[in-house]
């Protein structure tokens, strides 16, 4: 179970998140939708433990942090960060490392995995996504879609409880392709959770198990994907879905 309770975050006079609470089960895919600039990415960064928040708390599995702990460089925030892996919109692969080393760097040097084991596992993942032949290339030599797969594998290789994807539709193609979808579904099947932030409803339909709609800095509603799409409770959700349909 992942629990977010009364989460709040303000920068200067701008409220980025106000009183956001939600709960969803592990082993599922959650989509977070809403117009740009409504705090979706902020929520994701708070979940990842990379962005301190002002109020509330987040619990992933057995680890939880409060607002105070999120802003301290305490042992707890480091543990909490290990619960999740994040794939940024612009991926931010390590440009000085090969594809293989992008994936194995953390397992070897953080988890202390033997190099041979880490490489065998990484290669298996690369093969699964059909990019094993690129293992010794540098990120800049890959297409956008290939780079996105590497970024996802880099996060998955650390075996996090939750995988966080920020706007994956900007590199678009691969995430909709069968092999990446299979990879993520295999990942959830083993009890892991995936959270995808996107402004594209079309992309999440039929892929996410749950959808959460973010209005201006707050959570408007959350439901099973089909129910939210067919029977939205709030006027703002209806309006957003209507505009999405038209696009």
């Amino acid at each position: 179970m992942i629990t977010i309770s009364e989460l709040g975050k303000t920068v200067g006079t701008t409220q980025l998140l106000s009183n956001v609470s939600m709960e969803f089960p592990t082993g599922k895919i959650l989509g977070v939708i809403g117009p740009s600039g409504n705090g979706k990415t902020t929520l994701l960064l708070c979940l990842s433990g990379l962005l301190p928040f002002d109020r509330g708390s987040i619990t992933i599995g057995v680890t939880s942090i409060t607002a105070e702990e999120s802003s301290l460089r305490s042992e707890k925030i480091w543990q909490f960060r290990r619960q999740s892996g994040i794939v940024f919109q612009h991926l931010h692969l390590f440009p000085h490392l090969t594809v293989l080393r992008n994936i194995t760097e953390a397992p070897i040097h953080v988890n202390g995995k033997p190099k041979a084991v880490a490489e065998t596992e990484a290669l298996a993942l690369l093969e699964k996504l059909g990019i094993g032949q690129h293992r010794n290339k540098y990120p800049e030599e890959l297409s956008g879609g290939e780079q996105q797969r590497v970024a996802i594998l880099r996060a998955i290789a650390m075996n996090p409880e939750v995988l966080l994807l920020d706007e994956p539709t900007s590199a678009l193609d691969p995430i909709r392709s069968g092999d990446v979808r299979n990879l993520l579904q295999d990942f959830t099947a083993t009890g892991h959770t995936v959270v995808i932030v996107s402004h594209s409803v079309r992309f999440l339909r039929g892929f996410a198990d749950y959808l959460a709609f973010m209005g201006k800095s707050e959570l408007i509603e959350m439901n099973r994907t089909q129910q939210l799409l067919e029977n939205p409770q709030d006027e703002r959700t209806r309006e957003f879905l209507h505009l999405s349909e038209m696009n």
Partner: protein
Amino acid sequence: MLLALQSLAAYSSPTLRWGADPSGGAPYVYADPANPQTYTGFDYEFAEALARQMRMRAEFVPTDWESIVASLNRKEFDVIINGFEPTEDRAREMLFSKPYYLFRLQLTVRKDNNLISSLEDCKTNGKSVGTLVNCAASRLLESGGYIVKGYQDPVGAYQDLELGRVDAVLMDVAAEMFYARRNSSLKPAGKPFHTGAYVVGIRKSDSLLAAKVNAAIDSLADNGTTERIFRKWQLWDDEQLKLRTKGTEPYAMTSQDFNWTEGLIKLLKAAGVTVLLAFGAMIIAVILGIPLALGQSKGGRITGTLCTVYIEFFRGTPVLVQLLFLYFGLPVIGITLPGWLTAIVGLGLNYAAYESQVYRSAFQAVPERQWQVAYSLGMRPFQAFRRIIFPQAFRIALPPMTNDFVALFKDTSTAFAIAVWELATAYRELANATQSYLGIGLIVCLYYLAMSLPLAHYAHRLERKLQRKSTGILTSGTEQ
């Protein structure tokens, strides 16, 4: 009226422009401590007397001792009157007058030194001897195979002797009397020895002037003017009476025949020193630049301010001044470093300020998200820095660092100011000895190029090798 006529006469009479180096030039020619606008010294008085005897007006032209012959030949002045000794090598370049004073050399050591009582002791014990560059003493020492350290002026030589940077100093008695005799921590070693002569130096083409100067020197010697001047400076002895008789000249002429093979080996050694200085200083700069950059950008207010003050101080003042400060200033508070180490430390401290700025901009060029990705993968700050941030920043910093290193290479030439025998010092000394500024200059440039070109080449290759892996920074987009 009388005054006006006198000054008119003075201005209408021809001028004898004479050159000498007044810095550390006592008691020859130096700024009068009682009245720093004017000069004094026995050579100053002698030059005035000489000009008067020749019915000319003396005009003093301050110059640099080391290149004094070159300046004479460039016609910056007409004659050299600066305790100037005739040498066989100089005889090829210029004319010498008759001697107007016979000098001797005196060896000086530290008070507590009982090992050295003669020049021979320095050789047998392998002790270094300091002296002025380009003078009779330096020629004597160099041809005798001593460990020589050349100085631009006596002050620096005796100061280094006190500080133990050199074991003995050999100098003309006149300078020794003025700078060392009254210093309680130094003492003369043995008696004065080697009689040499001070003469007036004249351009080779000015034989007419030479004849007039010789006649005037004879007159001054015979009418007692010379004696009066040198008695006043307590430098008179009966030896000088020999100059009144017009017999054979009773002094020895030192010689330095330039041996090209030896010269090139000397230059090669100097090049080695240059390499040592450059690499030593760069290692200090590269390492010290890291805490400076971190302190300035990530340190608290006090640390940050201190780092900024350090950086602006070293970037905003000339490296030459910094070296002089370290060499002569630090001993005051009890820290005495040898010249080469001072040069390495000084240049290192200076370039650390530049490297810190290279690092700072390089780290700023690595996107903040790279830190976040590393953290989300469970890396701790140090691990993230070492494995993710540093390698990327290094690739960005490499080209400007290469530039700085080549610049540092050339800046090692400032070490000549603190008597380090590196390539630029070697150039000045050898070119002065041979008067071959062009030939030796070209060789020295070749030495510099032979060192800096491979450096630039290898750095460029390394850059290209790393560049192939690093352009991701240039292609990654911005993120809101």
